[in-house]
């Protein structure tokens, strides 16, 4: 990752969402992006130039644009039309962003376009978001990484965040993902946990 002092940046065409620039690099704000918050916390998977990433829940393409600055290709999946309009604008200006308007819980819809990837990054804030991540494990190469942004309030508001978190980790382990690291994203984001895991055997979808 590229740091200027203690500021995380990425190198690419600026002006995507009015981000600040330092020395020609785009500042990647941890308060706006959960992935940036993860790197600020000192963990996460380093984004490298040759990497391919499947990004679920791409939204308006702000974080996508930073990821695209680092890696070879980003497959950006988003279901809602309004943010997709913004994401398309980002894709038109970046050669390596492949926009896909589809439901991340139905990977068969975009299976004909997505290559094997090195990293699945998932930020969809759905009650079944762990199941969605597991289903999308088919695109992950062996020993590939999964970063799951778990919004505990979306999974179940009535449960304690810690309880939701440990249940999610168990589900992931049962599907063949071994947990590497995890962290709560406070103070940047409330009730959000980041789970970093590795695919260590063929992913078993529980359906």
């Amino acid at each position, binding site marked *: 990752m590229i740091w200027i002092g203690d500021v995380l940046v990425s190198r690419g065409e600026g002006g995507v969402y009015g981000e600040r620039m330092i020395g020609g690099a785009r500042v990647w704000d941890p308060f706006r992006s959960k992935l940036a918050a993860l790197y600020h916390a000192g963990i996460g998977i380093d984004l490298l130039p040759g990497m391919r990433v499947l990004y679920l829940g791409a939204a308006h393409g702000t974080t996508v644009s930073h990821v695209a600055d680092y890696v*070879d*290709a980003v497959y950006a999946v988003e279901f809602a*039309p309004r943010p*997709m*309009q913004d*994401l*398309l604008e980002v*894709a*038109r200006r970046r*050669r*390596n*962003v*492949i*926009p*896909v*308007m589809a439901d991340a819980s139905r*990977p*068969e*819809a975009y*299976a*004909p*376009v*997505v*290559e*094997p990837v090195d990293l699945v990054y998932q930020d969809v804030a759905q009650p079944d978001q762990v199941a969605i991540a597991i*289903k999308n494990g*088919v*695109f992950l190469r062996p020993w590939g990484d999964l970063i799951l942004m778990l919004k505990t309030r979306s999974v179940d508001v009535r449960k304690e965040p810690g309880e939701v978190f440990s249940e999610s980790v168990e589900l992931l382990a049962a599907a063949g993902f071994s947990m590497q690291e995890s962290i709560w994203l406070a103070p940047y984001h409330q009730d959000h946990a980041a789970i970093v895991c590795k695919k260590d055997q063929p992913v078993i*979808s529980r359906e």
Partner: protein
Amino acid sequence: MQSYWFGDIDGGRCILFEGSPADAAARIRSLVTSMDTYNPPDWRQAVACGVCRDRIEYLSHLQKVCIAGAEEAVREHYAQKDMELLQMTRTLDEMDTVINLLSERVADWYMVRHPSFSRKYRKTPAHLMVKNAGQRDRGGALGTVAQEIARLGEARTALAQEVSRRASDVMPNTSALIGGLVAARLLSHVGGLRQLARLPASAIQVLGARTALFAHLQAHAPAPKHGIIFQHRRVHNAPRSLRGRVARVLAGKVAIAVRLDLYRGRAVPEFLASAQARIDRAGTGNTEL
């Protein structure tokens, strides 16, 4: 055989797809991929098939196809009949909020200008009050603002009529039962006709009463009897003791009406007649129902 965005691959043999990016995108949507036997596409395979020369070209072709596909999906989504109605209704409701807020402010401002003025014992509605302020202070800052608010009020009235008209077009049965405006508000609350048609009557009954509903679910507050549906005259004109029943019956009929609107798309007179009769009966307090 595996089907990819650039064509099919059958045991090492490539059958390339020829056509524009938009055609390729349409083909992708028609493909049914079985995830059990799925093998992700490989750009080297595409090069071997002659789709592209290198990875850069692979990505650029793929991106063209995917952008075309996503653009078409967005277009299709917005082309649905209920999408513009949704925005119109939300605009209408927000205009109401803004007009009320500004009117209150202008009234306070007016009272500073006219210290002996009070709204007590006056029956003047807020919009007339704003209009008066606009006339009495013509040319001044207060007058200009007041006139603009009055104009906004006129735009709001025109929009309300248009919403009502559109609603009878998009939801003929529901609008006939509860009126275009209330029907449109239900629609805008859940985000679309399809979403509304999937709701059970019990949920439709309390749409818009979220705070009360959660107070009920989490603490021991009484259950809400009605939400947006209360705006219909048959609910708010009913005697207090009957409101719950009228709301429940009305919600039940609205749930059916919405489904008729979605799946038939035209008014169904037989249903409307029987539904109206049933709702009327609920409002009379006849217990033999």
